[in-house]
């Protein structure tokens, strides 16, 4: 009963968000603040605002949340009540972030999202990887949030107010501005899993797929982009932060794309792809121009649509086939079995992958092109080095993206023409996986409750491209299509030869996860043992020593009691004499 209540509440709330977004569309931007209390000369309080950015994000969050809630109705049955409640709480937190005008209200939404993602990743808490993935996710985002909090302090105290609308970059001294924005950047990097703090997103995949779709594709990780867009004039006012952002974005883009190319599980590929696409949005923002901001937001919207779609399709694969690993899915590709039975999923996943790869005509193509155009204009007209770097890296990433999308698509849905189905491609670590025919009798299409959202998102993945008007720069459009081809052809040729050469360094994702474990987790565990022993043996020893010294002293004095009456008398007389002398001395 509780489960149905929360299911209805979940779907209702996300629909409500869409309704609010609709109502607020076109309303003049204004802010209201409430529950303020003053601390010294600063006021700590809450404030909300509505403007075009809020409406846009509310719409995106609403749509994706509705799709996820509906999808989860049939996807998930055990512990549904807590699941739906947490997803609703998450959606509310994301809405708070989007609507907040006071930095503290934004921080509250920001960290409640982190907590919800922790709880939802560990939804299947009987699985080991879910437990460890959840803790890693929360700690890394929490580390980022500490930087975020310090950033709020620096900016708030510098500008004398914690209200976003009142943050005027002119009043804040450049040093404080750069420090504040850099610290906020730490929070953003933590939350959107950019390079230094990126290892938690791929490990967050054991969570249910709808959660991955909502949190780790569309909303939470995009909150960083939203924050920079919201504080865009503050961020663009400090050049150093922009260069740092550009560097981080470009590095993450290439890093994530390379890792995606070597991943062997559908959700992990999509996770790395999300990190890479987010980096593209950040690179657009780092240009510092209004076109950059517009391109980033446009890419954010389209990305939310097609990445959400892809994760939900992966969910269907997981739900129907039981696993999303290439090695398992390949067994069902004989005579196109997978394609024919999961027909709708196949079509929608193809649309999603096409949009992600940037195949012309799909939403991804248009949004990536706006990013390329913004980079080109910034580089060409303003002649800034960042422009050229961003242009080059986005182009390269487009090619890589096309490569891993085609690889994923071909390996999952199509049987390689190579001899004996290219046994060695994925199975070298799974010796008993002979490619015999699994009984595909039980394989059947997902229920309509799951397919509905897929179709809706598929339509969005195509339609959204045209929503922003068709002002295309033909040269760049042609260039990006060529890049996509450069990505797809190698994938096709490798697939046709049945080989999947995964370099070890990419497979282990540059060893960063093990390095972090060695650098931080092991020393902290060692320090904790030291602290516990320190308390028990070092400080405890001193306290016990004080106690022991008491008893030792008393034993010492007991020796004086010899039992001889005369010694006592002598002692007494000596005492009297001494006192008499003392009295004499003092009297003088």
């Amino acid at each position, binding site marked *: 009963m509780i489960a149905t209540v929360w299911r209805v509440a979940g779907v209702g709330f996300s629909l409500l968000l869409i309704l609010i977004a609709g109502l607020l569309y076109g309303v003049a931007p204004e802010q209201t603040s409430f529950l303020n209390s003053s601390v010294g000369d600063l006021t700590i309080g809450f404030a909300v605002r509505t403007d075009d950015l809020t409406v846009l994000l509310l719409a995106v969050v609403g749509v994706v949340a509705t799709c996820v809630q509906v999808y989860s109705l049939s996807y998930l049955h055990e512990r549904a009540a807590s699941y739906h409640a947490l997803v609703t709480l998450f959606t509310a937190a994301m809405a708070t972030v989007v609507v907040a005008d006071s930095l503290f209200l934004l921080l509250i939404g920001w960290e409640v999202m982190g907590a919800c993602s922790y709880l939802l990743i560990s939804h299947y808490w009987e699985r080991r990887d879910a437990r460890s993935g959840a803790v890693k996710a929360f700690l890394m985002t929490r580390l980022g949030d500490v930087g975020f909090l310090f950033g709020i302090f620096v900016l708030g105290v510098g500008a004398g107010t914690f209200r976003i609308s009142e943050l005027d970059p002119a009043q804040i001294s450049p040093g404080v501005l750069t420090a504040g924005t850099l610290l906020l950047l730490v929070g953003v990097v933590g939350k959107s899993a950019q390079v230094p703090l990126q290892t938690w997103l791929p490990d967050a995949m054991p969570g249910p797929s709808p959660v991955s779709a909502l949190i780790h594709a569309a909303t939470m990780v995009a909150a960083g982009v939203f924050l920079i867009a919201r504080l865009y004039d503050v961020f663009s006012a400090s050049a150093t932060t922009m260069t740092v952002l550009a560097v981080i974005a470009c590095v993450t883009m290439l890093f994530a794309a390379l890792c995606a190319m070597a991943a062997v599980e559908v959700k992990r590929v999509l996770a790395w792809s999300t990190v890479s696409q987010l980096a593209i949005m950040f690179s657009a923002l780092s240009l510092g121009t209004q076109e950059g901001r517009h391109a980033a937001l446009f890419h954010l919207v389209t990305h939310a649509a097609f990445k959400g779609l892809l994760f939900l399709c992966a969910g269907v694969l997981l739900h129907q086939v039981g696993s999303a690993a290439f090695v398992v899915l390949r067994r069902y590709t004989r005579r196109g079995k997978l394609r024919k039975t999961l027909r709708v999923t196949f079509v929608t996943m193809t649309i999603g992958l096409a949009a992600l790869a940037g195949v012309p005509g799909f939403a991804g193509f248009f949004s990536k092109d706006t990013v390329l155009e913004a980079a080109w204009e910034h580089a060409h007209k303003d002649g800034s080095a960042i422009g050229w770097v961003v242009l080059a890296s986005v182009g390269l990433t487009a090619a890589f993206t096309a490569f891993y999308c085609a690889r994923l698509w071909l390996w999952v849905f199509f049987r390689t023409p190579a001899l004996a189905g290219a046994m060695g491609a994925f199975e070298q670590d799974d010796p008993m996986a002979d490619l015999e025919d699994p009984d595909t009798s039980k394989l059947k299409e997902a229920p309509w409750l799951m397919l509905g959202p897929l179709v809706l998102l598929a339509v969005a993945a195509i339609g959204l491209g045209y929503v922003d008007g068709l002002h295309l720069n033909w040269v760049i459009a042609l260039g990006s299509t060529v890049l996509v081809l450069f990505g797809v052809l190698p994938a096709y040729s490798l697939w046709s030869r049945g080989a999947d050469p995964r370099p070890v360094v990419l497979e282990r994702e540059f060893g960063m996860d093990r390095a972090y474990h060695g650098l931080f987790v092991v020393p902290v565990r060692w320090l904790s043992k030291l602290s516990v022993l320190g308390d028990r043996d070092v400080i405890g020893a001193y306290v016990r020593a004080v106690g022991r010294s008491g008893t030792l002293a008393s034993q010492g004095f*007991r020796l004086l*009691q*010899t*039992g*001889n*009456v*005369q010694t006592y008398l*002598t002692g007494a*007389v000596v005492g009297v004499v001494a006192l008499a002398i003392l009295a004499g001395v003092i009297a003088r």
Partner: protein
Amino acid sequence: MPLVLPLLLAVVLFCLGVYGVLARRNAVTILMSLELMLNAVNLNLVAFDAWHLDGLATGQTLAVFVITLAAAEIGLGLAIVLLLFRGHGHVDADAARDLVEHEESPT
């Protein structure tokens, strides 16, 4: 006669008494030296009475009282010495170590 003469005599007698009490081994000789100390006190009282002359002969009265007190005290002292003798067979004050604290097991 200078007042200080009897007082110095009393001091000497008193200190001899103290030495006797602290140094002598036999309990009875301790009591004897105690008597010496009391005599020194009497001497002091009488000397001050002669010097002060308050008309009431306070010093000498107190001397008489001290003498009676000494009598009572020596009676009891000797009773105790007899008990010591009966208990231990000797009256050596140095050897009577009953008051010592026995080393019980530390708690």
